[in-house]
C-alpha cells in the first residue's frame, strides 16, 4: 500500500497495515497513525509529545 505523508508529501510504502498502527515518515520522521475510513486506510499525524529538542 502507498501513502503520502501529510506533513512533507513523501511517499510511504507499508504492506498489510492495521488500524491504529504508527508509521514513521522516512523523510521527516513525523509519526502517523493509520486510520480506517470506510474500507480505505489513511494517515493522520499521531498526537505529538511535548516539544523535544533532545536537550
Amino acid at each position, binding site marked *: 500500500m502507498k501513502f503520502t505523508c501529510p506533513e512533507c508529501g513523501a511517499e510511504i510504502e507499508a504492506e498489510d497495515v492495521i488500524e491504529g498502527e504508527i508509521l514513521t515518515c522516512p523523510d521527516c520522521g513525523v509519526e502517523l497513525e493509520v486510520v480506517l475510513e470506510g474500507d480505505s486506510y489513511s494517515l493522520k499525524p499521531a498526537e505529538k509529545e511535548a516539544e523535544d*529538542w533532545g536537550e
Partner: protein
Amino acid sequence: MTRVGVVGASGYTGGELLRILINHPKVEVTVATSREHAGDYVYRVHPHLRKLTDLKFVKPEIDLIADRCDLVFLAVPHGTSVNITPKLVEAGLKVIDLSADFRFRDASQYPIWYGWEHPYPDLLKKAVYGLPELHREEIKSAQLVANPGCIATSAILSLAPAVKHGLIDAEKIIVDAKIGSSGAGMEASLATHHPEHFTMVRVYKPYGHRHTGEIEQELSFVSGRPVKVAMTPHAINIVRGILTTAHCFLTREVKVPELWKNYREMYGGEPFVRIVREQRGLHRLPDPKNVVGSNFCDVGFEVDARCGRLIAIGALDNLVKGAAGQAVQNMNIMLGFDEREGLQLTGVRPV
C-alpha cells in the same frame, strides 16, 4: 585507468584529494606535486595515508604533468592557479581548479571581489562553475571546471529551491556562516594559533567575503533575476565543517509542505544532497558533525511565520563537498563515470 594529477598536493585540500583518489577504482594518481616536499613520500605530510600509497611528491613542472596525466586537480592558492591552468588547458588536459581564479562568469567581478584584473578573460568564458546540482550538463563537456568555494556551496544549495520559486525577497538575503579551521589551509598564523583559536567565535570579514560574489552569481542564475546576498563568516572551534544559516524574508505566506515539495523536486534525485528536517530528537536540522568525512551537503528549512522569515540551513565538510569531494564528483561527470564512483564515503561520527 585514467591518469590524474594533483598540483599542490601538500595542503589539506591536496591531502583530501589524495585520500579519496587512492581508493577510486577508475583512476590512478600518477602525479602529486609539492615544491617544498619534492622527493618525499606523500604520507610524510599526510600520515593517515601511510601504508595506503607509496606515491612521492614531485616538483610542479608543466611538461611532466602534461605527459603523465589526462586530468589535473589544482589545489593551489588563489592567484597562483591563473599562471598554471592556461598552460595545462593548452596542453589538452582536463583541469579542475579548486582556487577561485576561474569561478566568475564575468571578468568584471575580479576587481570587485579579488582586487585584480583577470589576465585570461577568454579562458574565463570557457570555464564552468563546478556545482553539479546546478550545472551537470555543462560540466559533462567542460575542459576547465572551477570548483566552488566551501561556504558558497552550502549557501547556494540551501537557498536554491526557495530562490527558484521566488519565495523570498532577493534583495535581503542574510547568510550567517560558521566555519572550521581547516578551511584556512595549513599555513599557521596568530588567528589559527591554538591558544587563540581554541574556544574562539570570531567574526572575520563581516562583509565583502569573496564567496559572496559566487553565491550571488549562482542564485541569480537559478532565479533569472539579480540576487543580493549579505554574508558574515565566523571562525568557530571545529576543524572540519561549515554551517550556513540563511535568514530571508518570505514574499508571501508559505507552508512547510510546499517547501518540502520545492526542496524534494530539486534534490530528491541528487546523490549528495540530503533534506534534513525532523520532528523529534537531537538531529533535526543539518549539522556539520553529521557529514564530516562524507561528500554530503545536508539542507534544511524552517518557517518563522511571526517574522515572515524563512530560515534555510546548509551543512557540509569544507574539505569534502566544499572542495576535494566535489572536485572528484566533477571529475566523475567529466569522464562519464557514475557520479558516486569513489565517493561512497560514510560520514565519521562522532569525532
